[in-house]
């Protein structure tokens, strides 16, 4: 038996973190229209933290691909410091935040992502200076975990995107992105 933050009993599969089959937009809309403004406040506050963690993960991935493909990298690469900065404040805020009912699942993925990024950051200097398979793997594995946690977080609540499709050329832009519409309607 698994309980949601609001004590609703849910099947264990709810927390399997696999992509759910498309049903309808009702669950998301119901979440925000669900008479708990604290969830909305949480989303607004967490968006910046999510974006910083996503940016940190992307920066580390970029550094790792350059290192493993033979590009120019070293332990003092300026991007690493930027990644540390992006992670620092966002992780601190994530660790000190308590999530309201209905946002706990998202928050748990945020916590896990922040922790995994801490581990990845610690392994990065070795990966960038040694560039051997073992050193790269020490950073790659927690980074991969962090990215997966961010992906899972992005599926828990609307308003969190891994990729910015909105600016791209190949998409139907006539309809405003659903998650943003939900936020704007609050």
């Amino acid at each position: 038996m698994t309980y949601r933050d609001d004590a609703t009993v849910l099947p264990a599969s709810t927390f399997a973190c696999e992509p759910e089959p498309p049903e309808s937009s009702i669950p998301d809309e119901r979440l925000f229209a669900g008479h708990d403004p604290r969830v909305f406040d949480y989303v607004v506050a967490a968006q910046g933290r999510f974006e910083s963690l996503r940016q940190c993960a992307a920066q580390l991935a970029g550094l790792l691909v350059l290192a493993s493909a033979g590009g120019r990298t070293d332990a003092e690469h300026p991007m690493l410091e930027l990644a540390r900065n992006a992670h620092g404040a966002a992780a601190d805020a994530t660790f000190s935040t308590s999530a309201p009912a209905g946002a706990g699942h998202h928050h748990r993925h945020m916590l896990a992502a922040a922790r995994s990024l801490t581990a990845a950051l610690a392994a990065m200097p070795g990966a960038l200076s040694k560039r051997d398979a073992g050193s790269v793997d020490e950073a790659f594995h927690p980074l991969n975990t962090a990215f997966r946690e961010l992906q899972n977080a992005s599926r828990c609540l609307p308003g969190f995107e891994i990729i910015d499709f909105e600016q791209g050329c190949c998409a139907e832009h006539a309809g405003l992105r659903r998650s943003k519409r939900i936020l704007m309607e609050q």
Partner: protein
Amino acid sequence: MADYSIWVLEYAECNKNPVAGVVYGAHDKGTCRLPYAYVLIKGNGFNAMVDVGYNHTEYGETIANEFGVGNWHSAREVLSHADMTPEDITHIFITHAHYDHMGGIAAFPNATFYIQERELSKWVWAMSLDQRFKVLQAALDPGDILRAVDLARSGRLVCVQGDRADVLPGIDLHAAYDTHTWGSQYVHIRNDGMQDSDDGWILAGDLVYRFENLEGWDPQTPSYVPIGFYVGSTTNNVLVLDEMSKLVGGEHRRIVPIHEDRLHQRFPSRETVDGLRMTEITLADGEASKVA
């Protein structure tokens, strides 16, 4: 004599894409169907592709629901119409790092991937910028870069610096820096194997979206019209159109835009599944048609 067969394989589509998104300044032209496609090249004992499509598992639902991009079909299904499997593919040329060109790399376990190093290094730079610059991070998936790390760890990622001739016999990669993206590249197939080929084909990636980019809106006064979205300069986007045009002796039909819905009006084609098309650009000697 032709060494390679070339097919454009649609794997998804957007039915209401703004024309202005793909042809510069076309704000009064409404919307168009925009196929998502990759290219299969077969010949000289190799099975190669240009780009690999997007990662439907990770964000297919998002772009279907919120951006009208759908009707996705797997590489296994799409390639089967050319009697090919993902495992058969040996070489893949990534024109640029956008999600719909690079997202499907995990589906090809035996291929070596070629991408411009500048595409990766400038991507890293873009990620160092704050959110005010998010337009420079558009359509980039950090997950694709992680998958590229995986490729590099297994020795299947080749970072190309500038042009590279004969990456396969008769196939050249041409860098197109600061155009659609910072490190775009296009593929030139010299199908007669000659240096100064009379049978050249260019697989343009997103350097050309539609015929209008190469030919303009008025057949009486043809002109280059830049693509509708880029991070480089307008000048570079026009100059690369001219560069490609010269490589094929001004025969614009030899420059293949994979997002062009009207490709089937110029080349033999057939429907494969759910309205998606397979278009046969050219056939190598002895190769049977897949669209007849």
